[in-house]
C-alpha cells in the first residue's frame, strides 16, 4: 500500500512540475522527503535535461566530427548537454549495457540490423515520430527502432600504379589476371558475401536471401590473394598507403581520404558498391529519458549538420532535402545522392537482422584460417 501511495505522490509532483506549478528545486526536495528520489528520477521529467545525453558512436575522428556537425548546435539550441562516447555500440555491447540494469548510454549510432533486432526484442525504445519528423529521412532508411543518421558505402578502391584500367565490377575484383596484386576486404562480413555472389554472376535483384554456401565457396577462390581482412578503417587505409594491396573493398569515407592523401594514386568509385545506412536508436530505459534523446535524433536529421558531416568525414546525408544544398565540390562524393544511389546496391537490413550472428560464425570459420 505504502508503495502505491508513494508512487501516487510522485505522479502528482510530476504532474505539477510539468504544468509549471512548482519548480524543479521544490520537486527534488519533495521527492527527497518521500524518500523516493530514485523513483522520481525515473519519471523522466524536467531535470533529466541536466544530465547529458550520451551519444555512442565508433570513436576516432567521428567524435570531433559529430560534435561539430550535431552536438554543439544541439546544445546551443536546446540547452541540453551532450557527451560523445566512442566505445562502439555493437549488439553485444548494447545488450551488456541493458543487462546491467542501469544503462549509461542514451542514443547509439548502431548498425541498422542491430537496432532492428534489439528493438523487436523490446530492448530499444520505439522512436517517437511525433518528435522525430519522419519525412526528414528516406522512407527505406527508417524503421520503428532506428532512423538513418547518414549513409556510407563499401566501395571498390584500387592502386592506379598497379594497372591502367579501373576495376568496375566484383568480377573484376576476383579477376587476378587482369588486376594482379593482393586484396583486402571487411573482417566483419558486411558486403563481402554480396560481393562474392555478384562476382559469381548473381544479379542484384536475386542477391537476397544470400546463398551463403555459394558465397563462401567463391570467397575461397580468392583466399590466396587476400592479404588481410581489415577490422578498422585505419587499417584499410594503411594497407593502401603502404602499397600492400592493389584492390580493396573499403568504406567510401576512407577511400575519399586515401584519394586525397595519395594525390590520386588510389582511385575509387561508387559503381557496384554496397550502400548502407547507419541507425540512430535509443536504449530502452535510457538514463536521460526518451524526450531529449528523440529531440537529438530529430536535430541530427537536419540537412545542415548532415552536410557538415559529409564535409568532415564523407558520410552521405540521409535527409533527401540535403541534396539540393550540398556544395558543388561535394556532390560527387555523396553516396546518398540519387545518381550515386542508382550505381550502388543496398545492404538488406532485414536479412542481416535475421542471420547476422550465425552466418558471421560460418564466415569467420572460413576466413579465419
Amino acid at each position, binding site marked *: 500500500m505504502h508503495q502505491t501511495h508513494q508512487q501516487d505522490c510522485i505522479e502528482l509532483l510530476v504532474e505539477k512540475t510539468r504544468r509549471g506549478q512548482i519548480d524543479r528545486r521544490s520537486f527534488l526536495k519533495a521527492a527527497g522527503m518521500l524518500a523516493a528520489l530514485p523513483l522520481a528520477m525515473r519519471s523522466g521529467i524536467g531535470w533529466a535535461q541536466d544530465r547529458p545525453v550520451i551519444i555512442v558512436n565508433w570513436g576516432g575522428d567521428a567524435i570531433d566530427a559529430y560534435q561539430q556537425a550535431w552536438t554543439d548546435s544541439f546544445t546551443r539550441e536546446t540547452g541540453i548537454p551532450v557527451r560523445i562516447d566512442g566505445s562502439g555500440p*555493437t*549488439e*553485444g*555491447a548494447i*545488450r*551488456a549495457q541493458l543487462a546491467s540494469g542501469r544503462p549509461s548510454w542514451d542514443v547509439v549510432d548502431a548498425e541498422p540490423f542491430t537496432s532492428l533486432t534489439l528493438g523487436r526484442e523490446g530492448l530499444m525504445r520505439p522512436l517517437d515520430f511525433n518528435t522525430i519528423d519522419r519525412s526528414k529521412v528516406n522512407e527505406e532508411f527508417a524503421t520503428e527502432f532506428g532512423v538513418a543518421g547518414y549513409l556510407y558505402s563499401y566501395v571498390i578502391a584500387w592502386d592506379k600504379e598497379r594497372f591502367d584500367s579501373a576495376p568496375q565490377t566484383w568480377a573484376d575484383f576476383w579477376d587476378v589476371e587482369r588486376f594482379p596484386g593482393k586484396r583486402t576486404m571487411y*573482417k*566483419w562480413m558486411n558486403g563481402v558475401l554480396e560481393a562474392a555472389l555478384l562476382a559469381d554472376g548473381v544479379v542484384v535483384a536475386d542477391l537476397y536471401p544470400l546463398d551463403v554456401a555459394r558465397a563462401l565457396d567463391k570467397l575461397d577462390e580468392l583466399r590466396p590473394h*587476400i*592479404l*588481410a*581482412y*581489415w*577490422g578498422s578503417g585505419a587499417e584499410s587505409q594503411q594497407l593502401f598507403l*603502404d*602499397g*600492400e594491396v592493389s584492390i580493396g573493398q573499403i568504406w567510401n569515407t576512407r577511400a575519399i581520404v586515401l584519394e586525397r592523401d595519395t594525390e590520386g594514386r588510389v582511385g575509387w568509385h561508387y559503381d557496384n558498391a554496397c550502400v548502407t545506412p547507419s541507425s540512430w536508436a535509443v536504449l530502452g530505459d535510457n538514463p536521460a529519458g526518451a524526450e531529449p534523446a528523440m529531440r537529438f535524433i530529430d536535430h541530427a536529421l537536419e540537412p545542415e549538420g548532415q552536410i557538415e558531416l559529409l564535409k568532415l568525414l564523407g558520410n552521405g546525408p540521409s535527409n533527401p532535402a540535403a541534396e539540393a544544398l550540398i556544395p558543388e565540390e561535394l556532390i560527387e562524393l555523396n553516396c546518398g545522392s540519387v545518381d550515386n544511389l542508382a550505381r550502388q546496391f543496398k545492404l538488406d537490413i532485414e536479412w542481416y537482422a535475421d542471420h*547476422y*550472428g*550465425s552466418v*558471421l*560464425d*560460418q564466415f*569467420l*570459420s572460413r*576466413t*579465419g*584460417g
Partner: protein
Amino acid sequence: MITRLPERWQYRLLLWPLPVLLLLCYVVPFAGIVTWSVTLPELGVDNYARLANDPSIHAVLWRTLYLCTIVGVCALLLAFLMAYCWLYSSSRWQRWVELCIFLPFFISVLVRTFGWLVALRNNGLVNSWLQELGLIDSPLALTRNTLGVIIAMVHFMVPFAFFPLLSSMRQIDDRVLLAARGLGASRLRVFISIFLPQTLPGLLGAFIMVFVFCLGFFIIPAILGGGSTLMAAEYVFLQMFQTYNWGIGAALCVLMLVLVSGLVWLLMRFSRVERLVG
C-alpha cells in the same frame, strides 16, 4: 595484539589477503560465467553440446592449441640457448643477455605488436633489407598471417621461459659435470646424458607456463593475424560483443579454464614449482 597469537597463526594471517582477493575478483565473477554457460539462451547443456559438435569452434580450438604448441617449443628453444649462454659466459656477456631479456619485457605488448607489423610487413624493414641485399626478389609474407603471430608471440614469451630454465640450470651441480668429464665423457655426451636430463623439470615447467599464457592471447593475433588467425580469446570476444552468444562464449571460457587447470596440475605434479621460481 597480533604478537600474542601463536607464531604459525601470525603467518596464516599474513596469507589471508591473497585468497580473499582471488575469491572476490576471480571466483565470484567466474561463477557468473559458469552460470551463463548453462543458462543462456536457456537452461541446459546445449552450449557444451555445441562445443563438442561445432566444426567451426573445433577449428578455432585446434588453431589455438597448435599455435600455442609451436610458440611454446620455439620460445623454449631460444630461452634454453640464452640461459645456457648466460650460465657459461663472462659477467659482461651476462649483462648483454639480461638486457635482451629485460628490455622487451618492459615495453607494452601493443607497442611491440605494432613494432612487429612495421618490421615484418611486405614493404617493412626486414623485407626491404633483404631485397636491398639481393637475397629475395619479392617480399616474403612475414606477417598478416600465422607466421607473424608466431614470431611476435615467441618474442613475447621468451622471458617467461628464460627464468624457470635458468633457475633449473643453476641448480645443477658443476662437480657432477666435471666428474663426467674426468671419467672420459665428451662434451656432447656430458650435455646429453648429464646436463639435459637435469633441466627436464625446468623445460616442462617453462613449456606449460608459456603454453598457458599463449592460450589467452588476444592483441597479437588480432593485429598481426591479418583477420585470418582467429584464436580462442578473440572468438570469445566475438561471441560476447559481435554476435551476442554469451552462452557459447561462456562455455568456451569454462572449457579453457578446465584445460588450464589440467595443465597446471601437470605442472605441479611433475615439476617442482618452487624450483622454477627459486
